[in-house]
């Protein structure tokens, strides 16, 4: 097997690899800025300089040429090479900054040059704390600068588009953003303008950077040149918790990270998953952070004399059971939701089953033509396939209306059917509507009983995307009834770890008074004396995998290990997304 020698150690390899990626895959490091594993390699930042050579081998005998001391003679390339674009070859000898003074010096020189026209405004820069330039300057940069003349000045605070702001002075011209619009989103909206040290990326005159994937350029920008118009100046990265999650705004189920501070989700960034979204996600999914914070239903709501008032959990459970008891089973309609997780839908179905009610129905939330074949899908819900695999009856608008007409009590899980125009107020005339929901909407306004439930940021639950891949979320923010310190799965940021409940950066107000669907269902079942205790998503999934064939073998542990599990291989079964 061919081998390369990196810093004196030999590594065997197979296939073709670029040197920088190979070194990274070994868990070692060479500093770089412009390289990105999912895009073309321009080799323009010149930071990943390494010394590359080859042992001199006698062609006939196949023996290494040796010097006087018996060491193998190396023929070095005349110049230092950029590791990012060089293919590794059998017998290649590489010296990185760890072993070679020349390489160390070259990398330091390059950083000095990058920094001369950089404003060095880290204290007011959003990127600080997660800035490759900052990190690598600390590690490999010069101690000071010999630059004593005037820096180049370029445009600042340019609103490139609705979501992205440019500070051209911070830009180091790595061209990651322009390559992103050329190679990944293919809108070709960004290009580098001007020449030399006056270079900066911008749009064509008179056009705006409204690419539906524009915020990815903010993520890949190795400095603070491109920042999110929305997130700018909201928080320092080291104050936030980073929790993995799943994008619930469409059917693709992009892997994301939720960034929270004091139980408010402040931003959403994509998380790498080769099989789903690579390093990217659509802008729409990022704006969804608001649904976790704003307009949330906190405490149950009940209608009294035609007006919704705050109620208590005891009242809510009592009313819930009372309504079911007082209605004939055939007049009760249970509606599941493609917007809710597998576990939530399952809990509802199990309760429905034990009570002798109907197997929940659901209405897919599709928007024809919205998909782009990349990460945006026609399917507007994260779990349509999950509902299908649970065996729920899939109804269209007409069929649902027919069912609603027959019912006098409607139990609706997390689906804003009035807002979606699937149902009208007229359809629900004279019917008692119970909805389990996360956010206020037209639908919850109409409901006679509103049960506030947890969002994808507050519970661990799984969603099956349009490709039949099941992936799960983690608890990112606390509710009134959870505690970060007692929950081993919740991440703890600096402020959580070192603060107390009496610190001024902690507010109880940000915790929503809501319960996971399965907790409410268990409460309700308990008061009916039913044998139904569902404590958390992990156990529910174990139960589902033993009772539902499509979920066979699925567990949280396996999902975590494999970054999601593909449940269906037959493409015919996928939705028409």
């Amino acid at each position: 097997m061919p081998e390369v020698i990196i810093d004196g150690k030999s590594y065997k390899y197979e296939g073709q690899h670029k040197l920088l990626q190979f070194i990274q895959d070994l868990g070692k490091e060479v500093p770089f800025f412009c390289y990105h594993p999912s895009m073309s390699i321009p080799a323009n930042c010149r930071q990943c300089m390494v010394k590359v050579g080859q042992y001199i081998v006698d062609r006939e005998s196949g023996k290494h040429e040796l010097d006087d001391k018996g060491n193998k003679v190396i023929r070095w390339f005349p110049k230092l090479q950029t590791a990012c674009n060089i293919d590794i070859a059998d017998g290649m000898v590489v010296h990185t900054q760890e072993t070679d003074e020349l390489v160390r010096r070259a990398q330091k020189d390059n950083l000095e040059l990058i920094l001369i026209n950089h404003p060095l405004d880290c204290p007011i820069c959003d990127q600080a704390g997660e800035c490759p330039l900052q990190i690598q300057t600390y590690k490999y940069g010069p101690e000071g600068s010999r630059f004593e003349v005037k820096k180049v000045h370029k445009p600042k605070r340019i609103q490139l588009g609705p979501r992205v702001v440019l500070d051209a002075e911070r830009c180091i011209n790595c061209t990651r953003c322009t390559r992103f619009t050329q190679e990944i989103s293919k809108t070709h909206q960004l290009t580098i303008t001007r020449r030399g040290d006056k270079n900066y990326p911008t749009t064509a005159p008179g056009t705006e950077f409204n690419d539906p994937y524009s915020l990815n350029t903010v993520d890949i920008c190795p400095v603070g040149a491109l920042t999110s118009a929305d997130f700018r100046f909201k928080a320092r990265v080291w104050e936030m918790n980073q929790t993995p999650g799943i994008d619930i705004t469409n059917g693709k189920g992009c892997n994301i990270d939720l960034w929270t501070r004091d139980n408010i989700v402040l931003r959403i960034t994509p998380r790498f998953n080769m099989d789903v979204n690579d390093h990217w996600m659509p802008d729409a999914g990022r704006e969804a952070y608001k649904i976790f914070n704003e307009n949330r239903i906190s405490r149950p709501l009940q209608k009294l004399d035609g007006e919704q008032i705050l109620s208590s959990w005891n009242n809510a459970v009592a009313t819930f059971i009372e309504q079911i008891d007082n209605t004939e089973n055939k007049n009760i309609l249970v509606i599941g939701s493609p917007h809710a997780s597998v576990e939530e839908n399952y809990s509802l179905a199990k309760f429905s089953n034990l009570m002798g009610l109907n197997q929940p129905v659901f209405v897919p939330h599709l928007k024809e033509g919205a998909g782009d074949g990349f990460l945006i899908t026609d399917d507007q819900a994260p779990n349509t396939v999950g509902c299908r695999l649970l065996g729920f009856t899939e109804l269209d608008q007409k069929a649902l209306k027919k069912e609603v007409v027959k019912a006098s009590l409607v139990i609706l899980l997390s689906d804003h059917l009035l807002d979606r125009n699937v149902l009208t107020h007229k359809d629900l005339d004279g019917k008692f509507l119970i909805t389990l929901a996360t956010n206020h909407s037209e639908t919850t306004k109409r409901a006679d009983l509103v049960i506030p439930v947890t969002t994808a940021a507050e519970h661990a639950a799984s969603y099956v995307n349009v490709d039949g891949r099941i992936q799960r979320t983690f608890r990112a923010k606390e509710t009134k009834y959870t505690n970060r310190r007692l929950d081993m799965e919740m991440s703890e940021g600096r402020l959580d770890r070192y603060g107390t409940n009496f610190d001024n950066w902690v507010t109880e107000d940000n915790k929503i008074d809501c319960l996971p669907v399965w907790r409410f269902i268990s409460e309700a079942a308990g008061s009916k004396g039913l044998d139904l205790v569902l404590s958390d998503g992990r156990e529910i999934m174990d139960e589902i995998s033993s009772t539902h064939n499509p979920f066979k073998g699925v567990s949280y542990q396996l999902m975590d290990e494999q970054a999601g599990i593909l449940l269906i291989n037959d493409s015919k079964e996928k939705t028409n997304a």
Partner: protein
Amino acid sequence: MSTADWKNYEPVLIPDIKDLHNIDVYIKNGGYKALTSVLKDKEKWADPKSVINEVKEANIRGRGGAGFNAGLKWSFMPPADGNPRYLACNGDESEPGTFKDRKIFEYNPHVFIEGALIAAYAMEITTIYVYIRGEYRIYIQMMEKAISDAYDKGYIGKNIQGSGYSVDFYVHSGAGAYICGEETSMLESLEGKRGYPRVKPPFPAQKGLWGRPTTINNIETLAHVPAVINRGAAWFKGIGAASHPGPILYGISGHVNKPGVYELPSGVPILDLIHDVAGGMRNGKKLKAVIPGGSSTPILRADQLDGITMDSDSLRTVGSMLGTAGMVVMDEDTDIVDVLWRIAHFYHHESCGQCTPCREGTGWLEKILLKIKNGDGEVKDLDLLLDLTTQMEGRTICALADAAAWPVRFTINRFRDEFEERCKKSVHAFI
């Protein structure tokens, strides 16, 4: 013909013939004979390979500055597969001190066209582009006229002279960027993109214009080809310096009495070029320095020039290069600090900004030199400049960083006293 009797040299690229740019005059004087012979004389030129071999044998070293054997470059093209292949002719000469291709465009465009056509035939190329710098507007028009005349006469187009070989020829105008004279960024520019040099490998012969095999040659290099075909490789090799044979267009500018483009054998002594060819120093001033081959080549002091001839070997002995043979002659009144600042300003202005060392380094060099020029510099700045040149050299995709660094390094090394004199007196004086 040895270098010594350059005075008897008969020019072939720019002979003294009236209206040679006119295709009829060119044909009357033996023009397009070489092309016709290559296409039709199957005894002499059995196949395209034979043409490449002859050119390789002649050792026409690329006149764009790098000095690579043109025939050898042609032989790197992969075998033809029926898909498009390109010849890109580089007429973007923009280096300060270089103005030789312009003479060909103006006086004898057809010798270049004929050379390009022979090269295209030899490499089985389907399309030729000639990239001319945008500032040469009038020469772009003249080239367009010359090419359209050659189309009319049947030297370009379908089935040239009944030989079955077809090729198209297009003029492409630059837009004023020096970097587009770098071969791969010229390809980017031809494709309609921003002129950024490409990372090599892949080399243009494998993946060039629109991802197809492409050869890039300088205008003057191609203009030498018809003479090599007509008179043979031995004739060409017999002219001038052995290691860098053939005639060269010397572009002499600066403080001489008769600046201009002169066609002479390679290897003419520099002092002969100044005193005999270019009519001596202006106003009888003393010679101070010469930049031998365009602004990026290291400057030479007058006292380094004795016995030095204009060929790569001889110039290497004194630490310089032939480059494009665009000589800049400077007399004793020249302010070397100003000269170096002006050169640094040029490279700062022209750096494309792709690679960090060049983008940031060229600007830094210029700013320090401006400081020194204005009398605000310190001696430590000179050492910083020298340090910066090593930080830039050899660490970028193309050679612009080298071209910017060399003049700074060599000018400071060779005229250090003048620079120090401009600097502020040391503040660390011991009293």
